[in-house]
């Protein structure tokens, strides 16, 4: 069996290159792969396009990646929050490009990529600024916007437990974007609190099948935010 385990953070993120499109999971603090983000930061890569629901909190995690100038474009649903002040500084200084996508559309665009589809029609954003320039189809009397797949080079995912094949389970609302982003990238990297033996995860409760996972790194006891450990 292929060894998917990376013993160091450096190894875990060694496929992240300059200019890559990187999916960063999480919603608020739950489910954010903070270790992997730090690993990417430490690589000193440049020109990343990052897809993330939020635009970073405080100065750690995604905010650190932003602050160190690794990101040239952010695709995001909710950038303007008090805690995302690092992003705001960069944006106001014209140092970063921003694309706003409705949250359901963002998730669906990634699933569409992961499912090998070419696009989907959604009622979301019809008639709004966020649908500008996008084709509109009328199906059975209702208007829908055509949205295209959002595929990435890399996904950074946070899981609760992983087995040697890369099967994943998550923890409460930290599930959020993680299973979707795991599907949508050419190369999916996971940080998990715990590695369990092959066969130890009940096949009925696996949320993300290991076929979507390329690499994993074990962080030790599960915690929200590294500072809390």
């Amino acid at each position: 069996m292929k060894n998917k385990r990376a013993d160091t953070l450096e190894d875990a993120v060694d496929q992240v290159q300059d200019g890559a499109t990187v999916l960063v999971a999480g919603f608020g603090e739950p489910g954010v792969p903070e270790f992997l983000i730090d690993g990417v930061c430490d690589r000193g890569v440049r020109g990343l396009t990052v897809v993330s629901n939020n635009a970073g909190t405080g100065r750690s995690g995604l905010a650190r990646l932003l602050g160190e100038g690794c990101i040239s474009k952010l695709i995001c649903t909710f950038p303007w929050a008090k805690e995302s002040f690092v992003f705001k500084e960069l944006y106001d200084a014209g140092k970063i490009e921003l694309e706003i996508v409705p949250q359901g559309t963002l998730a669906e665009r990634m699933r569409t990529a992961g499912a090998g589809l070419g696009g989907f029609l959604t009622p979301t954003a019809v008639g709004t600024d966020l649908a500008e320039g996008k084709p509109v189809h009328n199906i059975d009397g209702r208007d829908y916007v055509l949205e295209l797949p959002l595929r990435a080079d890399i996904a950074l995912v946070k899981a609760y437990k992983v087995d040697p094949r890369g099967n994943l389970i998550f923890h409460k609302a930290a599930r959020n974007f993680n299973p979707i982003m795991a599907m949508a990238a050419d190369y999916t990297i996971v940080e998990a609190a715990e590695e369990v033996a092959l066969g130890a995860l009940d096949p009925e409760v696996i949320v993300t099948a290991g076929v979507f996972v390329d690499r994993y790194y074990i962080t030790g006891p599960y915690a929200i935010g590294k500072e809390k450990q």
Partner: protein
Amino acid sequence: MSETSNLLTPHLMTRDQIAACVAADLEDNWLVNLGIGMPTLIPSFIPQGRDVMFHSENGVVGMGPPPAPGEEEQDLVSAGKGLVTLIPGGAYVHHTDSFAIARGGRLDCAVLGAFQVAGNGDLCNWRLPHQKSGSVGGAMDIAAGAKRVFVMMTHTTREGDAKIVAERSYPLTAGGVVRKIYTDMAVIAVTTNGLVLEAVAPGLTAEDVQAVTGAPLDTANVATIAVAA
């Protein structure tokens, strides 16, 4: 919180009083999504014995009240990022399944805040006209997908300008979706024949409300809201 705490504007209802008005209209067995801000006050006012289930777009189906001290779970947050709980019989889903619920017609109601609501039910709540960008989050998906959208907001801007208008001048969130508007002054239904003033806060007249409303109100049948003492 009593009405008299609002000394400077004695006839405006408090946020809790508006929340109670909305709560009274959420029906037994409904699945409801609450927007961030004011709508999060609603759950405490659901009448005893009425089964209203709450959906949070970050994948919580059956969101319960904030945790008791000592029972906080960092991975269990609402869309507004506050700590919450899960009711017995609740479930966790990932982001695309969560938005399948939202867009797929499974939300009996969504209660959202607003910057502006037009007489035809147009909802504007994601970006102010002078802003270069906004935080859309899940608002466009939820507004487009819920069976009915209730708006909960102050009747006017801080400057006293009407937020209920004949035609929207703000960037659109979703067209023609608002069914009912709950403010600190009144409850207004959006109908195919225009806006109908259903009820006013104690101490206010229909004329008081019309005076700060930018669209004509049908005032043929106006009740007075019963507020808690």
